[in-house]
């Protein structure tokens, strides 16, 4: 997927003595995970990142990169389509079809046509992200998932080339991700009831700007381009607050809840998306008595552009461009 990644590495920087204390633990953790992290001089770090806080005490370079989430998803979907999958966008699951304790399909509503449709299937995989709990509830089962929102602030210019992280345990505003012509400061973390209704707390935006300045003081000089908050599906652990929850993933066979034909995959991060798909596919194969090896690790993804091209003829219904009575440019045309 080389066309969808800015691979410019990352830096973890220590700003306080407490960060510095964390350094050895961080390096040991990287070594244990076979991540080739190496300390570089403060002078070199500042030459690489001239807007970095000049008071940093240490810098560690790690392999890292930035991807385009939307195009990344499209590349997966285009590849699935190329291999026979049908992708029903704008189709909301309104209910699960059940026969006794078995889930036998889904009822969907096409947002373009308003039509309801029942799809009968051998097995339903619930991969609804932060909505996984809502979908599972339709089958009368629970998923230990907490939709957890985080605020991100995008700046109106790019101030760093590498992904910059605070050298410490995860906390609010401890990362600045550069992408194309922007730098994005992230993130906060709080549990939300409804992933569709997330109100961005103004103080979270302020916190991003304040914390971001610790890494790059020039953050305060740059206009904000956008602010956003989306919910992540985190696996709940008793006694652990939303901020501390790990980004691990889990696959649940709801046969354990007495419900057949229904599997949930949730948690995780985009970086583990393929591994998640492999795990749930293996489970599906097991349940359907299919003997097959997962091949996605070695399968190159199709171009994301194919996603739309493959679907072009399905929904077309040209009604012409609506008029622009008040637009000066329209009059010119």
């Amino acid at each position, binding site marked *: 997927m080389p066309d969808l990644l800015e691979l410019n590495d990352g830096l973890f920087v220590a700003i306080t003595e407490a960060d510095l204390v964390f350094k050895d633990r961080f390096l040991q953790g990287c070594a244990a995970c076979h991540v080739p992290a190496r300390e570089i001089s403060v002078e070199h770090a500042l030459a690489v990142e001239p807007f970095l806080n000049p008071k940093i005490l240490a810098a560690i370079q790690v392999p890292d990169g930035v991807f385009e989430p*939307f195009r990344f998803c499209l590349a997966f979907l285009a590849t699935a389509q190329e291999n026979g999958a049908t992708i029903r966008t704008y189709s909301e699951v309104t209910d699960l079809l059940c026969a006794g304790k078995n889930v036998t399909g889904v009822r969907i509503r096409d*947002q373009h*046509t308003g039509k309801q449709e029942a799809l009968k299937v051998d097995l339903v995989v619930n991969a609804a992200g932060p909505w996984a709990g809502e979908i599972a509830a339709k089958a009368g089962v629970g998923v230990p998932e907490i939709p957890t929102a985080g605020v*991100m602030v995008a700046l109106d*210019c790019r101030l760093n080339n590498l992904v910059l992280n605070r050298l410490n345990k995860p906390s609010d505003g401890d990362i600045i991700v550069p992408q194309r012509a922007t730098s994005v400061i992230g993130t906060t973390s709080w549990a939300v009831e409804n992933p569709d209704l997330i109100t961005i707390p103004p103080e979270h935006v302020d916190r991003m700007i304040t914390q971001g300045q610790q890494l790059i003081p020039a953050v305060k*000089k740059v206009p904000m381009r956008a602010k*956003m908050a989306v919910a992540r599906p985190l696996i709940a652990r008793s006694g652990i607050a939303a901020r501390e929850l790990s980004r691990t993933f889990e696959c649940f066979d709801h046969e354990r809840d007495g419900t057949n034909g229904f599997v949930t995959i949730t948690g995780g991060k985009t970086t583990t998306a393929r591994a998640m798909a492999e795990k749930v596919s293996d489970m599906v194969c097991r349940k359907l008595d299919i003997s097959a090896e997962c091949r996605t690790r070695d399968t190159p993804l199709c171009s994301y552009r194919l*996603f739309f091209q493959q679907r072009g003829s399905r929904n077309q*219904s040209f009604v012409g*461009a609506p008029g622009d009575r008040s637009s000066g440019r329209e009059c010119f045309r």
Partner: protein
Amino acid sequence: MNMLKVPLQIFRYKPGQTPGYDTFTVEIPATAHVIDAIDAVWTSHDHSLAFRRACHHSSCGSCAIRINGLEKLPCVTRVTDVWDGRSQVRLDPLRNFPIVSDLVVDMADFFRRMSAADMAMICEAEAFLPFTVDTFAVADLEPKLVELPENFSRFTRFEKCIECGICMSACPTMAADEKFLGPAGLAAIHQARKKTLDPVKVEHLLGLADGEHGVWRCHSAFECTEACPQAVDPAGKIMALRRELIARRFLKMLGK
């Protein structure tokens, strides 16, 4: 939190039905962007409203629409920049695309054009910071040269173009020639041509640009460059392709 009650007039169309406009009034923070207002309609008023969005910071290009008649990305357009405090804010789908439903247009032909150019989304990066779409927008920050990290021979960066389709909607030629490669397609050809010295690829790309639906169709209105949210300057790229094609013709006439 200072809240606004903003009236929206949204284009509606569902297959088989007559197109028209619906009006909604949404209550949103004064700092909200237009995409937040559309979200509020979807969550609080009408769940059947179809629209596209993903990144919320002008990276994916998926949310492009027309706001009060002008092409914009609602994710980075503040409501207060397009609302006069009284009138309805009108939202329409992009022009020159088949409409699927409401604010959603069919991007298939657009991406066929982009695939024809085969522009890689990744390019080599300029070795300075800050880097911005419009460097003059950033006050008090002098560009500084950047040293490469160890084990790097270059930085990489995504192309400026986010394939939002705004330039195709703003282009007056698109309405006259539905096979016109369009500003985005021709700008992509220009970028792809810049990245290759392979004579076969160069011939292919310049052949596309020189074809019946290529650069000579452009009326030089520069609407694309004015509308582009990423400062790609598609019109400038079209003019550059024209210059190269003319130069090649002269050289050919001279037998070189």
